[in-house]
């Protein structure tokens, strides 16, 4: 049965995020009144996700390399590794190295319970690995090609491991070719434990309704949305269970795709995508 491999330090999990950095990422995200740009909101969500992955892998006074994580940004005519600072130019980085080499550690204010029925401001450390950026077109096919190259190497090096999970986050359509064909090439790569999983999130610029984890393309409004659906892998049973726990309408054949996602959808979707299977971390 596929997607059963244990995630361990010997056979770590691999998460690769493909981030749309085209011009339209400058627009406000969803129906939010604070007018936060999609690129800014996404950077916050992604930094928080890497932060959470570091905490998950922290073990007493060290950190176990259960995961290797990469972030590729695509904009203008190309696709580049998007982690900053000492990790610049790196496609995949062990989580322990990520934890020790953030771009910077900011202090942010978090609202928390004051223990007396009120709310108080608490200063928390917020490591940043990835800054928002936007420019030019949407070379999504270039990103999928680069992802294919990276996961081919990964799977050769980890033939028995859980297959890599690629999460593509975009607000638009590919401007450089046939998205579905490139996605098929990417998901044709795999380990003994199954094919690479490609999950797609389409970000909304409005407060319009979203389509979460669909089993078919019937409710999708246009060809671009349908292409993203076609390009998305079917969720593993464990991902379906996790989606249901989070209150999302997941079914056995749900694709890893959200159309017109609001910020909370993105957070939930990333949670689902980074909990690959019914496995303990060893």
């Amino acid at each position, binding site marked *: 049965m596929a997607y059963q491999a244990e995630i361990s330090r*010997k056979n770590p999990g691999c998460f690769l995020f493909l981030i749309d950095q085209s011009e339209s990422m400058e627009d406000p995200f969803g129906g939010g009144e604070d007018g936060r740009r999609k690129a800014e909101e996404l950077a916050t969500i992604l930094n928080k996700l890497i932060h959470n992955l570091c*905490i998950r892998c922290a073990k007493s006074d060290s950190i176990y390399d259960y995961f290797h994580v990469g972030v590729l940004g695509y904009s203008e005519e190309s696709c580049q590794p998007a982690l900053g600072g000492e990790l610049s130019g790196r496609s995949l980085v062990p989580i322990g190295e990520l934890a020790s080499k953030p771009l910077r550690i900011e202090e942010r204010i978090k609202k928390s319970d004051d223990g007396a029925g009120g709310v108080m401001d608490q200063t928390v450390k917020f490591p940043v690995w990835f800054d928002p950026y936007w420019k030019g077109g949407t070379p999504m096919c270039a990103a999928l090609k680069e992802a294919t190259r990276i996961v081919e190497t990964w799977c050769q090096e980890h033939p028995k491991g859980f297959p890599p999970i690629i999460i593509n986050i975009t607000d638009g359509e590919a401007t450089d070719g046939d998205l579905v064909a490139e996605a098929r090439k990417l998901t044709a790569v795999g380990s003994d434990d199954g094919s690479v999983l490609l999950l797609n999130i389409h970000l909304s610029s409005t407060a319009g309704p979203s389509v979460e984890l669909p089993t078919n393309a019937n409710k999708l409004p246009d060809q671009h949305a349908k292409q993203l659906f076609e390009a998305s892998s079917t969720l593993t049973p464990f991902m379906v269970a996790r989606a249901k726990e989070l209150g999302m309408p997941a079914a056995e054949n749900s694709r890893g795709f959200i159309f017109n996602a609001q910020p909370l959808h993105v957070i939930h979707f990333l949670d689902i995508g980074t909990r690959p299977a019914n496995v303990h971390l060893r």
Partner: protein
Amino acid sequence: MKHAKAANECDIKVFSCPKSGNSLEEYEDAWAHRQTRTPVGIRVAVADGATESSFAKLWAVLLAESYVRSEVTGAEFFARLKPARRLWRRRLAGRPLPWFASEKAEQGAFAAFLGVQIDAHKNHWTALAVGDCCLMQVDNVGKEMRVVEMFPLQKSSQFTMSPYLIGSRSNGESLNERIQISKGSLRDGDMLLLATDAVAAWLLKQHEEGRPLWKWLYRKLSTPESFAAMVAYGRKNGLRNDDFTLVRVIHHDVPVEAKES
């Protein structure tokens, strides 16, 4: 592979080993046992530190030790964990930790727990559990080996990836609904097995599928080598890779004159 034998008066044997691929230092289960005077008998505990939490081994040890040094057998045991929690915090205090380790430690450590008190005179036991460490009682030893108790889980399918666990930091949440208590009587020669989740689930599965290991556990399990052989067989036959802890207690009825003295 570790193995310990209790004082000669008690027929207790403890078998344990870390998950495959890990070192002995990374083993995060804990066990403890201690003879008691009132009532005359023994207290035995196993605890399973959660892999995804930090400093879980320390917390599992503190839980098991707290139980065997305590005298209570009911839910009030969990209301008296303040000293253990304080000790856990003290062991970490002042330790220079990187940001991720410090943040993880703030979340606390977690463990599943099972404690059993055996009253040797009255021939009964009382068990207390939170989570998925299990007690199995087998009687009619040497004959058909009847399983008379499985606690707190009765079937291998009841083991999940997210059992309720006890935290080293009290979050104010009441444990009451999660605490399980059971009692039972003992006959001479009865075998009690206390096991952490992976080995308990596997033993129950073998039992359900008509391949019980009770007889083998009673007669053949005696040395670290025999436990290693069982683990090796298990790993080829559905035993999940985890830390393993199995405590075997054989109850011997105290002669009447000893009871009266």
